[in-house]
């Protein structure tokens, strides 16, 4: 067998490699959203945070020469935006859906505004770890070039699991999200917990954004995000508010998102756009299958206003 042609294996390899690349921002954004939702709030504005993070990460990486400093800056920009969301939604009677959407506008606006001079220059990208050194097949090497942030994301999912289920702070977060009255009775600072949870969510969403600009696709442009920040909300529902599930769901979404480009790579181009829509169709199908009229979201945090 010719070493450079691996026949039918090309497609699954391309999907696997694509799944890892495409899923990484999903992991960060969805776990960020999950932490926020566990506190009883929903942040629909992570799309704006993601764009802001992508721009800040790219800009700082370009100016400092260090992509990791860029990641940190993206996280901090996301934290700041999370703080804004958290404070605004602490005003009684405020419509958090509308606040989320207006923060998408503001976040993308700021990202485009400050990102204008960043479209031309090339910032240093995040390094990837080559796990395909043992193979001489280029497809295998391409598929197993895995970005370090992907592994951070996997660790994160387990860390958040431990945090939520095995620590006192995790218990406090879950209590605040499940019953405000119970949390108050226990003397937990409800608002502060929620604001911190939204900030943590923003931090992770910002990092997810920096992956977009610093690794894959790997440059700053105004069409960088394809709605990952919004899909995170659906993904968390799909994952039933469990961080390990969110990791799996992100991989699945990544795989679905990698389907179009992978098929294009082997010459199937006719349904490119429809395959690109695969993650959305998948989410919708899963929402339809996993909810019922009687008990819309059995596992949802009690204070989360998803079902009215």
């Amino acid at each position, binding site marked *: 067998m010719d070493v450079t042609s691996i026949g039918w294996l090309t497609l699954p390899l391309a999907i696997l490699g694509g799944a890892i690349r495409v899923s990484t921002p999903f992991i960060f954004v969805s776990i960020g959203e999950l932490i926020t939702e566990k506190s009883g709030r929903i942040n629909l504005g992570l799309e704006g945070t993601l764009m802001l993070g992508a721009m800040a990460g790219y800009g700082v990486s370009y100016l400092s020469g260090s992509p990791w400093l860029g990641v940190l800056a993206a996280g901090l920009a996301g934290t700041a935006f999370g703080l804004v969301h958290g404070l605004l939604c602490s005003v009684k009677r405020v419509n958090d859906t509308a*606040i989320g959407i207006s923060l998408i506008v503001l976040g993308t606006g700021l990202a485009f505004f400050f990102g204008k001079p960043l479209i031309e220059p090339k910032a240093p990208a995040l390094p990837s770890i080559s796990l395909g050194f043992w193979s001489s097949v280029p497809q295998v090497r391409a598929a197993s070039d895995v970005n370090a942030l992907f592994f951070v994301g996997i660790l994160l999912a387990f860390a958040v699991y431990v945090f939520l289920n095995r620590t006192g702070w995790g218990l406090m977060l879950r209590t605040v999200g499940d019953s405000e009255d119970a949390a108050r009775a226990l003397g937990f600072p409800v608002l502060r917990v929620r604001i911190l949870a939204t900030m943590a969510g923003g931090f992770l969403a910002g990092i997810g954004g920096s992956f977009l600009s610093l690794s894959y696709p790997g440059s700053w442009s105004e069409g960088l995000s394809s709605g990952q920040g919004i899909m995170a909300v659906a993904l968390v529902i799909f994952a039933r508010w469990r961080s390990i599930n969110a990791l799996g769901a992100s991989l699945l979404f990544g795989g679905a998102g990698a389907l179009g480009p992978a098929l294009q790579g082997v010459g199937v181009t006719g349904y490119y756009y429809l395959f690109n829509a695969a993650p959305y169709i998948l989410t919708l199908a899963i*929402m339809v299958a996993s909810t*019922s009229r009687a008990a819309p979201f059995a596992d949802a945090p009690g204070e989360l206003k998803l079902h*009215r």
Partner: protein
Amino acid sequence: MSSISGIESPPSNPPGTAAQLSVALPVLAVLLASAVFAAFVALYGQNPFTVFGLIVQGGFGSSFAWQDTLSRAAPLILVGLAVAIPAQAGLVIIGGEGALVLGGLAGAVVTLPFAGAHALPMQVIMLVAGALAGGLWFGLASLLRQYRGVNETISSLLLSYIGIAIFHHLTEGLLRDPASLDKPSTHPIDPSYMLPVLPGVGVHAGLAVSLALAIIAHVVLRYTRWGFALRVVGGSARVARMVGLAVNRWVIGATFVAGGMAGVAGAIEVAAVQGTANSSLIVGYGYSGILVAFLARHQPLAIVAVALLIGGMQASASLLQRRLELPDATMLVFQGLIFVCVLVADAIAQQLRENTRR
């Protein structure tokens, strides 16, 4: 404001104060947003007064500016209505972009087999086709909500992305005009079918259509039993069932009409501006419409006013870019600031109203 300590006083505010506040607070909110925006452009080294002057000039300063503003306001009114109508029934549907592009696509292709017919029926058919496509797309979201309990906000957004993918798939595949090389488009519609320009205004007739639909929506929602029934459904589905309203039918009907509005917006963009369906339809009108509706508190006539304001702001972006080399995203920042401030002010006004009622 006299209250004697120790005695339970009736609400101390005179009844007018709350109403005044609910007008004054949004105005204050816009002023606050403008102040923050002024600081923002000042930090960027621009004179805020020059910037505000150019915004007014670029949006409302000349007949050319007004034409630009009005032709942007036309779709904004419709996508605003698309959010406001389901909101009466308590639904938050934010997938207007998908309904708009599918409506545009339907409008673009429906008259292609009929070349050389009378213009007026063809124009009506284009708008109706757009309405049906948009209506079906929104209707799906409310069907899923009523029968499967799927959250309509998220499902409508997902459907929007799916709709845009279908739009790309068809305009770059089956329905593509082979002559459209660098920008995949459908076959252009017969030029005689294009919506006429309103005499004296210089803006296409789509503006008249959207104004008429806004007025109809206002009358129906405010003065008919349909509007009342919808608000009962929105207030409490249980109460609505008790008084014998078919809740599912009302909710799905309202979303269908709303999607129809967004679809008409797309069809108008095709029939009055583009002449064909291509990616120029996807410029974010659907998302701006969400905020237009929220700023207008889901009131159709207020939607017209807010759409004019937002249309003018968006129209002025190119002038800011030409004169001051400010990125066109500048106005996106300003819009975001206004939305945030007004939403918070609205929440505060609502709290104050509740306090005075108590």
